[in-house]
């Protein structure tokens, strides 16, 4: 007879890293969850391990021309271009809403120059309710900043060092997969004082409409996300976990609890769910429920007992 799941003790899902206490290892990936408010009608934000905001810059940013998105096989290309309200408007208009929840708020940010990175970090450093910052050195869709810092280990080291000086809150650095060896940038981030690493951002890609012979997104090249990139993301997470001592957050094509578990088993301390939020605004809630069921079925009392248990 099957055990009655309802009467079994609930597994412990809480994880801790870089001074952050998360109720569970699930959080949205930046840029797929707006500023949180957009998803409040569909799920309880208090259920999330953390809330991760859309990337913020010093000044508001218009973003790229449309079309900005195109579906591909098992994924999508996007070139939104980091459209955002700017850090000051975020603090003024978006933070009061986010502060109502007891899930830690992780604010994603980027800059066009080292100085801008430093300035945004400094402004967020004093904001109560911001638990940690996630630094984007990996966006493929903007001309300046973003990936320029993420693909050159020396530039990455310098900009992270600069941010570190102006930030006392925990710093997560989000890496791009569009490099020859991601372990080198991961090491540079660790050496520069990052408290944690999150990976991967999107893979650069392109798609062509064969009838109009035009690129399917206006920016020509965009970032590929979705279930199709997951094996790449799991591989890179595995490699980085083996390379650095700081905690790693796995990201890339997580649609279901099983997908999240892949990242945890290779050693990620938490995961971010991205494109799945677009497909189903309730995705994080569903993955959480299924993660719990998985633990019960497998006799896992504490999710931490699963992390980094890859059998080789």
């Amino acid at each position, binding site marked *: 007879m099957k055990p009655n799941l309802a009467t079994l003790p609930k597994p412990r899902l809480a994880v801790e890293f870089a001074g952050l206490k998360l109720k569970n290892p699930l959080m949205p990936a930046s840029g*797929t969850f707006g500023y949180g408010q957009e998803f409040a009608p*569909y799920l309880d934000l208090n259920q999330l391990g953390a809330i991760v905001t859309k990337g913020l810059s010093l000044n508001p940013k218009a973003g790229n021309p*449309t*079309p*900005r998105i195109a579906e591909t096989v*098992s994924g999508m290309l996007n070139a939104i271009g980091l*459209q955002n309200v700017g850090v000051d408007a975020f603090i003024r208009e978006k933070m009061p809403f986010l502060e109502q929840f007891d899930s830690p708020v992780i604010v994603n940010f980027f800059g066009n120059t080292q100085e801008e990175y430093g300035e945004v970090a400094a402004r967020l450093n004093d904001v109560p309710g911001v638990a940690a910052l996630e630094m984007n050195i990996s966006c493929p869709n903007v001309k300046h900043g973003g990936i320029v810092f993420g693909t050159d280990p020396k530039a990455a080291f310098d900009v992270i060092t600069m941010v570190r000086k102006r930030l006392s809150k925990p710093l997560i650095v989000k890496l791009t997969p569009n490099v020859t060896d991601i372990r080198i940038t991961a090491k540079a981030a660790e050496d520069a004082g990052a408290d944690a690493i999150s990976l991967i951002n999107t893979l650069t890609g392109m798609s062509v409409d064969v009838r109009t012979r035009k690129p399917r997104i206006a920016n020509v090249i965009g970032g590929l996300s979705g279930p199709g990139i997951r094996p790449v993301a799991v591989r890179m997470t595995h490699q980085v976990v083996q390379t650095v001592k700081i905690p790693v957050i796995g990201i890339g094509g997580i649609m279901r609890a099983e997908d999240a578990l892949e990242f945890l088993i290779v050693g990620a301390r938490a995961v971010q769910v991205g494109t799945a939020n677009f*497909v189903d605004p309730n995705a994080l809630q569903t993955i959480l429920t299924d993660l719990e069921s998985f633990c019960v079925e497998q006799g896992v009392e504490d999710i931490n007992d699963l992390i980094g248990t890859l059998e080789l």
Partner: protein
Amino acid sequence: MRSEEKKHKMKNLQTIVLSNQEISPGYFRMRILAPGYKGTAHPGQFVMFRVRRSLPPLLRRPFGIFQIGSLPADCEGMPEKEFIELIYKVVGSGTEVMRELHHGDRIELLGPLGRGFEIDDVAGDKILVGGGIGLVPLYMLADSLADRSRTRLLIGGRSREDIITVTEFERLGVTSHVTTEDGSLGEEGLITRILERKLDKYPKAKVYSCGPMPMLRAVEAICSARKVALQVSLEALMACGVGACLGCVVKGREHSEQNPDYLCTCRQGPVFHSHELDWDRLEKSAEQGKSS
């Protein structure tokens, strides 16, 4: 209580297809079991449709709601069966999968979403201008008007096969005018010519339009020249439908690089007052955006 009601309104419904029929070559009409839509969905709102748990397509597809209705309960004591109807044209990978669905197939619906048509005087003269599949959101609008004898439907298409459901509008008491580019049904030519004629006759009429961007652009030019109020329902590529992906943005009237005024078609639209939009820059982006 209120917030609970709101939550209910926005939920992701796991439901089934009731019927799915080809009503004209390439055009399908799908009836979907949808408890909770009746009385809550406004004319012009849309749903995000997902073929349940199947891959591909990965992303949902947005569709305007054609109509909402109900069927008698299967047996005594059961609630009546509320449904919504979508009409779609098979144009890409998403709609290719949809055309294969049958009665009883399981799907997911997110909605009703977005801002619908704003109707301030239900009894005044109204002109509804639809291009091809663009007439879909106009049906609920027409149905919601009090005096439909003062409502005119102008519907244009490439050929007679693109003119759908006109008789249903007529059954509501709406007068219809049809044009086709090849002259196979109604008058030969573009629907905008009829719009000018009707506005000569009813200069105070309010105009509501949905269709391909070149048509909307022409409708906007006519209405702004005559200072006639116009609301348009836009189509856009979108991934989420809830304002997060920012894939479906259009430029607002005040938009500039320094002060971005991007509007989300899914949240601030799909229906816009024409004066909210930057028409000079709308056409170009929509031309590029045609696909699945």
